[in-house]
């Protein structure tokens, strides 16, 4: 876990009483949270606990039935994500935050080259100089430990770990202030996971980017998150500093979760 930049007292992202229902059943209910610049928040819980639904609401991809999601924009301060225009929301999603999907294929364009996957994001925020875009893409491939010689290859020919690293490069190239991650390591082999985790840990700390990470893996949460929220059946049952929640779990469900982990 890296040091958090704490001189910012205004939250970057806030959720107020966010609820989302599917067929009358709450996928997430009355969730409140504040995320500060540079802070990494982990959301843990089993499958179906509503953590991915919440993540999608926070990222402006899924409109909650109730509640507000506020984002602190660079130019106008706090805006509510679902009352601004869709065009503006999309612009924010391109410039101010990134979204790393569990499956790299959902976050990449597999029919264009690795370099284009990264460069495309730069062009979307106004970069036009081909040489510079390519140089920056190359630099990012290097930072996520992908051989520069693969810049013109298609991501579908990459291994799962490489695809995931490429997805991260694509998301970080525009220097977002916030990155959402949905089970970023779940589909990877353990050895590949370690490499990705180390990389994420370094990037998040170097770039001082805030992050919301959904994971069912408590070890991943321990390594990356400053703070944890535990979700069960759509409700936040416990929250606190990561080590508090994992070492001194208070809610019955958190105690069950922590005691169920196999010790390697």
């Amino acid at each position: 876990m890296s040091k958090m930049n704490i001189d910012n007292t205004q939250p970057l992202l806030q959720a107020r009483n966010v609820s989302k229902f599917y067929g009358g059943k709450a996928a997430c209910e009355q969730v409140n949270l504040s995320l500060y610049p540079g802070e990494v928040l982990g959301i843990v819980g089993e499958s179906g606990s509503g953590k991915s639904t919440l993540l999608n609401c926070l990222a402006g991809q899924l409109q909650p039935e109730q509640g507000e999601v506020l984002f602190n924009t660079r130019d106008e301060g706090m805006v509510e994500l679902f009352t601004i225009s869709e065009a503006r929301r999309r612009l924010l999603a391109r410039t101010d935050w990134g979204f790393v999907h569990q499956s790299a294929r959902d976050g990449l364009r597999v029919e264009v080259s690795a370099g284009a996957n990264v460069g495309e994001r730069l062009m979307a925020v106004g970069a036009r100089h081909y040489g510079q875009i390519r140089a920056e893409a190359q630099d990012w491939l290097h930072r996520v430990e992908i051989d520069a010689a693969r810049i013109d290859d298609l991501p579908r020919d990459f291994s799962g770990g490489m695809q995931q690293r490429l997805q991260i490069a694509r998301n970080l190239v525009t220097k977002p202030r916030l990155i959402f991650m949905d089970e970023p390591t779940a589909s990877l082999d353990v050895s590949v996971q370690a490499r990705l985790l180390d990389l994420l840990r370094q990037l998040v700390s170097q770039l001082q980017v805030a992050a919301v990470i959904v994971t069912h893996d408590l070890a991943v949460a321990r390594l990356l998150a400053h703070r944890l929220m535990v979700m069960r059946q759509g409700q936040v049952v416990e929250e606190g500093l990561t080590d508090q929640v994992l070492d001194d779990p208070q809610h019955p469900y958190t105690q069950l979760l922590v005691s169920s982990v196999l010790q390697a």
Partner: protein
Amino acid sequence: MLKRIVVEGLSKDFTLHLQGGQEMSILSKIDMQVDAGECVVIHAPSGAGKSTLLRCLYANYRASSGSVNIWHKGDTDEGGWVDVQSAPAQQVLAVRHSTLGFVTQFLRVIPRISTLDLVAEPLLMRGVEKQAAYEQAEELLSRLRIPKRLWQIPPATFSGGEQQRVNIARTMICDYPILLLDEPTASLDEANRATVIDMINAARERGAAVVGIFHDEVVRQALATRIFSIPAAVSLVAA
């Protein structure tokens, strides 16, 4: 004297939901003060809550009631008291970052990070220049007799004693105003134990407030300026 830690009415109960809601009261209304330049050794029988108390001081465990006030001076402020048991998460992290050093018995290994990187990391996070940070890390690892050939290897495969020394180096590399030590010498040989004792005494002499648990009588004798006893108040009440 300059007060560094003021604990008031600290209680810690555990509710074991997986054991049918069994309640354990481990700490009951503890008051404690620690000044700069003191080494307070927590002394009590096994199971009386020594580690629990130390973890409450670090806010790793959340108290059931009471406060743990830590004198904390950030990079830009003039210093003040923070109750780490009730302060917001961001503030607790800031207190840990610059004020509280905590050596546990076990090293938490990070995949792929070399021993040298692991030890230098706390200094780098404080903004110390890279070369200076690595020089200090090397010096500490040498002092603690970790062979140079191991420095580039992640400590996952090290022996218990080696891991413990890496853990000590990682904390002692920063001049924390407060040191919390949970059996830092438990699995060390005599020479390394003496080195760690010297380090802790040096920290105390520069003004650190030290609170520790040491089972070894020799270590206690060498370090303690005061003994703090926990009243044996363990009660097991089935819910």
